């Protein structure tokens, strides 16, 4: 009896030890990838969100070129779908398997990562040419005067529309300058579209596309000061009356039912049934999105090429609004190195991405506005060019509120907007829900 028990214990311990050795061997393997090393061959992991089309091809080309120019450096690029990206990145950081190079959305999300010591401070590592060329473009990716990411584009928001469908309905985009003209355009588009196409596509299933409507109304209703306090994550309460006004504006506009049928279960960017897909296939006349949209729409057209009749116009003014009517919401996709990334390979890659030559390729592949102005002439897409002009005229630009607030409060704000659009929350209740989330944020 006694012997038997002892032997069982021994074997149990042996088995446990084997498992532990196995587990620790695994973790050793994974951490050796991220151990800094200055010499010898290194492998870097890269996470980006370009799942298809020219964007995916861009990353393949960039990795290939960089590897060819930097013998001994291997970059293992992995695609993570946009809606899954933030959650997966956070899980990777929690498990200490942060990818070496990853997409950086800036704002509160960046601040969280910096506070946790996950992001490399690249202020003094950026190539001096690239640094002077991009200049103020680093703002979104900076915190306390330190730079944490290489911005690759600027994405001002506005309406991306089909010129053909507008023409069919007798609407001219340049005439949409205030809410009255936007409402009139919706009425005309509805009449012309019938069951063939909807005036405005909205991917509310992903929450943020709906929330951007609230951001835009806030940008117009609130003073630059008030709005930028939220856009830098400093507000703990939306006490200024302009926020409720913005929600009321959106509520009133929602009641005109301008969206595609089933907007609540429509996604933003995946497949022909998404809001971008509806515009790409002439099932909706326009949608409100950032300057990534020409590329996203282009990936969803039947031939996979950019929509030939795509146009752009900025968000209209609201009556009595305190914000500047030229101001724009804008994001910027930056690229960060993890704190443990092999150096100098990682920063070299960021400098390579920010260089004029690569930025030109980037601007073409993503049909977007490059962060490095020396590559601006590569923009050929007419709609993107219009957006770039609007950007140059904008008195100020603000970062997306959800990026600024971080994942927790940002998502809560977004969901409150969707709840209101679904008719479940009044503007007052939506505001209260946002305030609860902001008060708990930190």
């Amino acid at each position, binding site marked *: *009896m006694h*012997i*038997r*028990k002892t*032997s*069982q214990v021994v*074997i*149990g311990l042996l*088995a*446990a030890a084997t*498992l532990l050795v196995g587990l620790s061997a695994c973790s050793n393997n994974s951490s050796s990838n991220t151990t800094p090393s200055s010499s010898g061959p290194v492998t870097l992991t890269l996470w980006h969100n370009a799942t298809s089309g020219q964007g995916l091809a861009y990353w393949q080309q960039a990795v290939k070129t960089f590897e060819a120019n930097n013998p001994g450096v291997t970059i293992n690029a992995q695609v993570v779908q946009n*809606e899954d990206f*933030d*959650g997966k990145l*956070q*899980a990777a*950081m*929690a498990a200490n398997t942060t990818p070496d190079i990853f997409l950086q959305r800036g704002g509160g999300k960046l601040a*969280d*990562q910096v*506070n*946790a*010591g*996950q992001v490399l401070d690249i202020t003094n590592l950026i190539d001096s040419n690239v640094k002077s060329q991009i200049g103020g473009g680093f703002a979104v990716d900076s915190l306390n005067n330190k730079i944490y990411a290489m911005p690759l584009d600027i994405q001002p928001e506005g309406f991306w529309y089909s010129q053909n469908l507008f023409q069919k309905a007798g609407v001219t985009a340049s005439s949409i300058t205030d809410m009255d003209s936007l409402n009139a355009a919706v009425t005309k588009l509805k009449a012309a579209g019938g069951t063939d196409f909807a005036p405005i596509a909205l991917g*509310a*299933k*992903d*929450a943020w596309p709906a929330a951007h409507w609230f951001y835009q109304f806030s940008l117009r209703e609130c003073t630059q000061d008030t709005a930028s306090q939220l856009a830098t994550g400093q507000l703990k309460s939306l006490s200024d009356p302009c926020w409720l006004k913005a929600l009321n504006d959106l509520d009133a506009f929602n009641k005109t039912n301008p969206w*595609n*049928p*089933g907007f*609540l*279960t*429509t*996604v933003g960017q995946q497949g022909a*049934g998404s809001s971008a897909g509806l515009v790409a296939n002439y099932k909706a006349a326009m949608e409100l999105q950032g300057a990534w949209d020409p590329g996203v729409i282009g990936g969803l057209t039947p031939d996979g090429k950019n929509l030939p009749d795509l146009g752009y116009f900025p968000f209209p003014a609201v009556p009595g609004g305190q914000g500047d009517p030229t101001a724009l919401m804008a994001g910027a996709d930056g690229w960060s190195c993890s704190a443990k990334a092999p150096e100098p390979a990682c920063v070299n890659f960021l400098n390579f991405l920010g260089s004029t030559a690569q930025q030109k390729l980037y601007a073409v592949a993503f049909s977007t506005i490059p962060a490095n102005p020396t590559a601006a002439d590569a923009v050929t897409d007419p709609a993107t060019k219009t957006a770039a002009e609007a950007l140059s005229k904008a008195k100020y630009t603000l970062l997306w509120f959800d990026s600024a607030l*971080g*994942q*927790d409060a940002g*998502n*809560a704000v*977004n*969901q409150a907007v*969707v*709840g209101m659009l*679904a008719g*479940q929350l009044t503007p007052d209740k939506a505001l209260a829900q946002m305030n609860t989330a902001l008060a*708990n944020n930190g």
Partner: protein
Amino acid sequence: MSESLSAATAAPEIALNGLTRSEGGNHVLPPSSRPRRKNSGGIRAGLEVTLLSGPAVIIFLAFVIVPVIVALYYSFYSWKGFGTPNPVGWANYKWTLTNPQFWDAVKHNGIILVLSLVMQGPLAILLALLLNQKMRGRSIIRVLVFVPYVISEAIVGIGMSLMLQDTGAVNDLLNAHVGWLSSPKVAIWTLMFILTWKYIGFAIILMLAGLQGIPEELSEAAAVDGASYWQIQWHIMLPLLKPTIKIWAFLSIIGSMQLFDLVYVIWGQYIANIAGVSTMAYFMAQNGRLSGQLGRGSAIAIVVFLISLVVAIAYQRFILNRDTEGALTEAGEE
């Protein structure tokens, strides 16, 4: 859930071999493994048992028990997954229990639980009785009924969400404009339809197995005594099927409490509570992982765990236990 099933079906074996088993009673053993020799070779038997069950026990500890304890620990912290966790006391629990969306989710789980039993149970029994008859095409019908259960949840979710969109195939076919997924009044019924379609095959197979375990002599004897077909089903088959029904109901209840994947795939990361179909697990994923508050997510997980535990234990204690014992003795005597 499969553990409780195998434990229940293996009960008679344990009873038969009770004497030998009691020696090793302080070890966790897979119930189906029976000692090959009695008394002789004690050390060898012990070695075998440890060797065979050891890895399973270690994996169970490492991936079930330890995570539960870790979740309990982090539920008292504000933690974003990286950086230093800040102790917050009961704040995460307070946040969860005072959140109306959480109670909405609990309510939805309750509705799904009851409706699953009410909708799937009778239908499954009727179909099983039907498929227990000798008839043409029986095996093909059995296969067809079971097919939805075999398809993965993600594929069902994507397919259903495409078909049930406002502009999807179903509305097109019916020439209707019903918000199958988006209207809060309709969405829960859409979910129930999908769940029934998906899981009824499993219920039917279970019931069929139960029916086939009932000796034919009983219904033959009843028929000789002049009982009608329905009398036989009602007075003989159904009562003898009771243990199977109770096991199925238990599995269905657990499945309802855990429901996550279909909802997450069909309604995405944000809108399930707006459509009125969010579940407790969905609420946890949304407010734990998606919002990046892993401490809060852990607190929700613990609350959900406790709720599920209470339901499962209550069912075991008050409904499953007594009748299973009786039924299984009969099964053992067969």
